[in-house]
């Protein structure tokens, strides 16, 4: 018999706000989270906007020494998870750590770390690549860091399915609780891909708006092209 699953806590740090409440209110107010990129100089890019997290202070969530060894995607995942954990009322226990897991999806994981360390490799050689490169970059590190922080010993991995990674994680975590793999799952998504190589790639594949010049900080958010995408013609299956 399958079990009923409930969501008992939520947390979020988003371009619309640094809490669930603030993000939701901004959303209802029609605010845009997009703005000119500040995390690097975007002047040579065809797209110069992104949805950053203005005002996010990692030190409010993670010890300075630990934070240095984490990619920003892990910082964000840690912050949102801590809020959700508190919201769920688990701060003082009430769960079996062996039956509580973490499943945080990420489309690309620590791509800022990847980019920075590749530069180190090219400029200084392999001996200078940080020993923290791998544990900072791998996409399951938000899940890993949260389990270490909260002491959760249940299932721990990440979903990687492009923009659906976070929603996918919540869905899979739901299934896991329902079929009894775990009693509690911290689930969600974390991404920090606002860096030159990612913005360059997304811009060139036309996945982000290049109509940003028409928007302003106070104006309407950039919109997608209104011309509908033409569906690809169905191909006849190859004969065997």
């Amino acid at each position, binding site marked *: 018999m399958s079990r009923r699953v409930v969501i008992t806590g939520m947390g979020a740090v988003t371009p619309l706000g640094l809490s669930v409440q603030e993000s939701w209110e901004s959303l209802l107010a029609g605010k845009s989270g997009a703005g000119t990129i500040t995390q690097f100089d975007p002047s040579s890019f065809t797209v110069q906007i992104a949805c950053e997290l203005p005002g996010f202070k990692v030190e409010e969530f993670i010890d300075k020494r630990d934070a240095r060894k984490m990619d920003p995607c892990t910082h964000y995942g840690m912050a949102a998870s801590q809020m959700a954990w508190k919201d769920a009322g688990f701060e003082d226990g009430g769960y079996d750590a062996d039956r509580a897991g973490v499943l945080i999806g990420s489309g690309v994981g620590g791509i800022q770390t990847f980019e920075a360390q590749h530069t180190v490799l090219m400029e200084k050689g392999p001996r*200078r690549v940080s020993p923290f490169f791998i544990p900072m970059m791998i996409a399951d590190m938000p899940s890993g860091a949260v389990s270490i922080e909260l002491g959760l010993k249940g299932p721990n991995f990440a979903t990687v399915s492009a923009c659906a990674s976070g929603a996918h994680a919540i869905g899979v975590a739901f299934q896991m609780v329902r079929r009894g793999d775990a009693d509690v799952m911290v689930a969600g998504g974390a991404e920090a891909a606002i860096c030159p190589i990612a913005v360059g790639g997304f811009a060139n594949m036309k996945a982000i708006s290049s109509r940003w010049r028409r928007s302003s900080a106070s104006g309407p958010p950039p919109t997608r092209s209104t011309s509908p995408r033409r569906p690809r013609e169905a191909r006849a299956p190859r004969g065997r």
Partner: protein
Amino acid sequence: MADIVEKVRQVISEKLQIDAAQVTMEAAIVEDLGADSLEQADILFSLEDEFGITADDTDEAEGLKTVADIVSYLEKKVAAE
């Protein structure tokens, strides 16, 4: 000598985010200062960079325990360069 000591203390305090005053010559990197294995490697690589040396994985670099161990190891390496 004094230069090496200062540099070592500076690198360790920066890497481990601790006060340089805690980094005494007798302090053991793991037991006293709380470094994990990756932090140990990170410290060593930074010092290699700083002093322009390369610690061989098979030599005594692996066995360095205290700040004093690191300092005397670096002195030897720098002198040999």
